[in-house]
């Protein structure tokens, strides 16, 4: 079990009314790899992540985690099984603090029986430690997330995934809307996850992300898998050409 793929998708399909966003995708994600998913707008990349993470039910097909068939009723189900997803815009509550965001939905409490109060000190400590693992220099865990830079926000979102000790992290366009330096920071974060032995599936439009962090790339086109290959030896231009050819 520990040698097979961590995530396996078989014949995965997703239909939104008349739109077939995914038309039978087979995909194995190997343990410890960074897999990039590329494709033109509307190719089905986000749909793939949503279905794989339990945010949306598949119309057909099977998902197995660690070789066992699973059917998540919600992303929270998936979190509990070690699969965390970072949705680009929806991940954080801007006016809540860093600690509140990291522990959202899984707050630490102390007390007896039903008389449990939030353990804010422990959450601040925990959030700081998780962020330190990501080489983030954020210090004030009570600061609202809205004052952070885009790169720092991604660090907070990733810290939440670490909080769940996620073995598999799915990310949808984590560098979209970020500046050059911030994108580089996010790539660092992804490499940190890989160093810790975690598996990352990364959707990105930015081929520089793919070249910098990914081991393999899967190209989707029209809801189907058009290409699947190692990134070795490819540069951003090659990748762009592959995506364009697949879409044509």
């Amino acid at each position, binding site marked *: 079990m520990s040698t097979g793929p961590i995530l396996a998708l078989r014949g995965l399909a997703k239909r939104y009314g008349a739109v077939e966003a995914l038309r039978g995708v087979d995909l194995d994600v190997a343990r410890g790899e960074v897999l990039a998913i590329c494709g033109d707008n509307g190719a089905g990349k986000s749909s793939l992540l949503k279905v794989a993470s339990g*945010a949306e039910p598949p119309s057909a097909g099977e998902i197995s985690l660690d070789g066992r068939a699973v059917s998540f009723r*919600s*992303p*929270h189900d998936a*979190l509990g099984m070690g699969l965390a*997803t970072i*949705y680009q815009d*929806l*991940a*954080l*509550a*801007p*006016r*809540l603090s860093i600690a*509140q965001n990291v*522990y*959202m*939905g*899984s*707050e630490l*409490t102390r007390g007896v029986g039903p008389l*449990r*109060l*939030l353990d804010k000190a422990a959450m601040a400590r925990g959030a700081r430690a998780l962020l330190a693992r990501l080489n983030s220099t954020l210090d004030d865990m009570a600061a609202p997330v809205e004052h952070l830079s885009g790169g720092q926000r991604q660090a907070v979102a990733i810290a*939440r995934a670490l909080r769940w000790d996620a073995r598999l992290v799915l990310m949808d366009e984590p560098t979209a809307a970020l500046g050059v330096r911030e994108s580089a920071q996010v790539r660092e974060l992804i490499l940190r996850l890989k160093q810790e032995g975690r598996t990352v599936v990364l959707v990105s439009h930015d081929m520089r992300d793919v070249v910098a962090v990914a081991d393999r790339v899967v190209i989707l086109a029209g809801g189907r898998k058009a290409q699947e290959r190692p990134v070795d030896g490819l540069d951003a231009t090659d990748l762009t050409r592959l995506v364009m050819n697949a879409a044509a």
Partner: protein
Amino acid sequence: MRAVVERYGTALAGLALIVFFLVFAPNFAAPANLINVVKDTCVLALLALGFGFALTAGELDLSFADVASFAAVMAGFLVQAGHGAAAGAAGAVTAGLALGLVNGAVVTRLNVPSLIATLGLAAVARGLAFWITQGVGFTGRWPTAFTGLARGTTLGVPNLALWLIGATTFAWVLLKWTKAGAHLAATGEAGEAARLAGVDTPRMRRLGLALSGAFAGLAALLLAANLSSAAPNMAGDFFLYAVAAVLLGMTMFEPGRPNVPGTVFAAFTLKALGNGMVLMGAPYYAQDVALGVIIVASVAVSGTILRKAAFRV
């Protein structure tokens, strides 16, 4: 410096206003008058805290004043029918809670935006209150066990002040120190993110609206006990004041978010404003003008969650 102004600016302005009245308004500083202002604050603060619970979860409860009137009428009906003070008190709170639960069910199960759902329920509550009373209202003799809930004192402290302290503490602990409070805030601030993180957001929206109803019921109980009467629409005048208290409160302490210290301090400031203006001989309608300006200005300063709640129609 800017952060201090942002967090405490309007609170300091409120404080300055109170100091102004202390110095210039005749009799404002008299202990009896100040105690009256605190007592007056109680019902208003309870209603405002309720509205704040719902708003924390991202829902607008426009029904709380009519729910309170209905709950007061329920208390009046039970007490006047001879069921006793306890039944009357329980009846008011239960009526408020029940209507809050109805709001929650309509909003989360029938997917009606709270702005509309609570407006509808307000009309229903108003109609029921008139139906029960036939429009006349319960006056007559009320048992002192009932009126004492508001008018009595415990260890020398007016009971209304104790209710205010108790309700404020409850709301503050619930919102700041419990998991439910954290989940309410996450739901209101970023519903989709909260849902994806495993927060049961529909349940939190129901909780916010239920608490709003329960607090309206408690406020109604104290209002009826204090006035020895229960009439349809008796809480109607509190609507704008309570909304103003929450909005003004959102400009202080935790700017942009409904918060307990802000709400209660704002409720006190509004009551002090009304009291001080009367003592200084300002005409009654001047209060309405001040209230309107405060509401609009507060939202202009910080009203993000309110905007979100109001425009998710």
